[in-house]
């Protein structure tokens, strides 16, 4: 209880409250502009967090991402383009309802159920993280090695499109993480004689490059987009929302839990939570024929799930230092930058910071109601912001942000290179999130493997000798074998059908 009050004390400082308000507006703006994702918003935010105290730095990401994931629903409903990938699952349904003249209802549902989902996620985060942290206290390098492997494998498993491409992207991230002085012997690897590369690829410029510059490149390719925006009477958006809540309360509960659970899984983010909740919702619905043609039930389910997922994503990030998605990968980068090592120790040493993060989830989701109303009210203006001015602006912030971390133009080079890599990978159907996870988890993976090996005198069997390690190891191996098993099962099924 003491820590809760201390956490509240850290949160209710004028400076932190100001950060919350600014980041809310920023998240709403970026989220509601199609083509700019929440991850981009987070990566542009890191240079600023670099100069903040730990609590406002973390809180800024919490509020920004919560607002951005909700705001992605606005263009989905109004112009049929999801603002962020997390709204893609129910864009069709949202827009269909708008065409039926129910835009106000859709947006009201988006605001309210995003907030409810976020609050549910926050409750799960608050109750499960400390318990898991106690388990995590018993972890040694063996367990951490498996956790990192599991995180990476899960990222590849859930990557959209080809899993092989996801795996290649992950390898690329891992490879980039090996650049620089090696951790066991201090041997410089892949530096090609460059002094700057000795410290490795800086994580922040790489992130801004992969997410920011590649999006800038994609956007300048398309030319100006003009939308016919449906006018919305913001005053009416909350009419009838309560009735819908009463009617679909079990859906909300189910999707909130599902979303949080997806979030806790390392590697799976809000977009996957939304798609899964959509599928589950359709299967359990009394009116499955409405799905795709304007089902409010679908929007309630997926909209709750994607926001509840956000808090879930923080569980593995805070407890184990294993990111739940690409935004929490950024969070882990920020934590390291602030000299905080994510993991169970943080719960013992600086619990007040953890409590401040918990509380910020609650504050952010409560603020979502008034701020969401504001965003809906100004939505037609926001969607008219000329992209040919906005995009150069993002470029400028990206370049300056990359420079600011180490005051070095070399990092701008990293930014450009990673931008090219990200751009070509996306253009060829490679997911980019695994690169980031590879880059963050690579050192954790290698360090824990090497420590374990040296500790055990190169005895590989020890990875399966400790109980928790054995369980994690077995799960990881099953995840690895899963694609082969699935193909095998499908083939046998086809064969038996053929006969």
């Amino acid at each position, binding site marked *: 209880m003491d820590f809760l009050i201390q956490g509240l004390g850290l949160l209710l400082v004028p400076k932190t409250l100001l950060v919350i308000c600014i980041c809310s507006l920023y998240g709403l703006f970026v989220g509601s502009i199609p083509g700019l994702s929440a991850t981009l918003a987070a990566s542009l935010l890191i240079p600023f967090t670099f*100069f903040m105290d730990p609590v406002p730095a973390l809180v800024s990401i919490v509020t920004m991402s919560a607002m951005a994931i909700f705001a992605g629903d606005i263009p989905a409903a109004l112009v049929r383009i999801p603002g962020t990938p997390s709204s893609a699952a129910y864009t069709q349904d949202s827009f269909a309802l708008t065409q039926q003249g129910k835009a106000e209802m859709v947006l009201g549902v988006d605001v309210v159920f995003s907030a409810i989902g976020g609050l549910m996620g926050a409750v799960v985060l608050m109750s499960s993280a400390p318990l898991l942290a106690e388990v995590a206290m018993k972890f040694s390098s063996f367990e951490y090695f498996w956790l990192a492997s599991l995180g990476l494998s899960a990222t590849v498993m859930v990557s959209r499109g080809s899993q092989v491409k996801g795996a290649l992207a992950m390898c690329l991230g891992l490879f980039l993480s090996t650049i620089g002085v*090696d951790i066991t012997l201090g041997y410089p690897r*892949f530096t090609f004689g460059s002094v700057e590369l000795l410290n490795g690829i800086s994580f922040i410029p790489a992130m801004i490059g992969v997410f920011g510059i590649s999006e800038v490149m994609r956007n300048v390719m398309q030319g100006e987009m003009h939308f016919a925006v449906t006018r919305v009477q913001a005053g009416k958006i909350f009419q009838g929302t309560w009735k819908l809540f009463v009617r679909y309360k079990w859906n909300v509960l189910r999707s909130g839990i599902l979303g949080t659970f997806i979030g806790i899984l390392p590697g799976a983010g809000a977009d996957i939570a939304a798609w899964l909740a959509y599928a589950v919702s359709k299967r359990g619905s009394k009116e499955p024929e409405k799905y795709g043609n304007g089902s409010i039930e679908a929007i309630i389910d997926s909209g709750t799930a994607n926001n509840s997922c956000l808090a879930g994503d923080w569980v593995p990030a805070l407890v184990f230092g294993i990111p739940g998605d690409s935004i929490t990968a950024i969070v882990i980068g920020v934590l390291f930058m602030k000299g905080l090592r994510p993991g169970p120790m943080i719960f013992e040493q600086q619990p007040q910071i953890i409590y401040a993060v918990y509380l910020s989830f609650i504050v952010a989701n409560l603020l979502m109601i008034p701020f969401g109303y504001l965003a809906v009210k100004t939505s037609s203006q926001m969607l008219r912001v000329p992209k040919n001015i906005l995009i150069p602006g993002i470029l400028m912030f990206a370049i300056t942000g990359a420079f600011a971390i180490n005051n070095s133009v070399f990092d*701008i*080079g990293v930014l450009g290179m990673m931008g090219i890599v990200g751009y070509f*990978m996306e253009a060829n159907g490679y997911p980019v999130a695994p690169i980031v996870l590879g880059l963050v988890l690579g050192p954790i993976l290698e360090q824990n493997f090497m420590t374990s090996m040296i500790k055990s005198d190169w005895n590989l069997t020890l990875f399966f000798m400790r109980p928790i390690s054995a369980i994690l190891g077995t799960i990881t191996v099953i995840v690895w074998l899963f694609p082969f098993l699935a193909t095998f099962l499908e083939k046998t099924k086809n064969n038996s059908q053929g006969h």
Partner: protein
Amino acid sequence: MALGVFLWSMTFQFPILDDSHPGPSLFPRVLGTLFIVFGAMVVYSGWKSRGLKEATNPDGEQIPLNYFNPILVIILIAVFIALANKLGFIITGVAILFILMMKLRVSLLKRSIVSIALVCFVYLIFSKLLRVPLPMGLLGW
């Protein structure tokens, strides 16, 4: 596909690197193997679906894409790296924004005002608020 081949060529450098230390080379070697395996799988699946793709490529309602603009973004970043220390942050920043907005067809007056205002805004935030020593260049005194 091109990327797959590119990664492949990279993997051939991996195993021969620093072979005298079993420690530092282990991880890159494992990665090298994975690159080869997954690269081969991508090449194989690309080769298998080659005919398929040509048949199903819908050329109809594509928006005309400008392939030069993304290259320009990279060129401008390179220009910034080359000139920022000499000319300073403000001049270089205004120049690259001006050029980029010209390509994106923003009117002369608008892009002059926006590029100067934006760079000054960014400069004030980073230099004054966050105390980042941005290079002053020609404007330095």
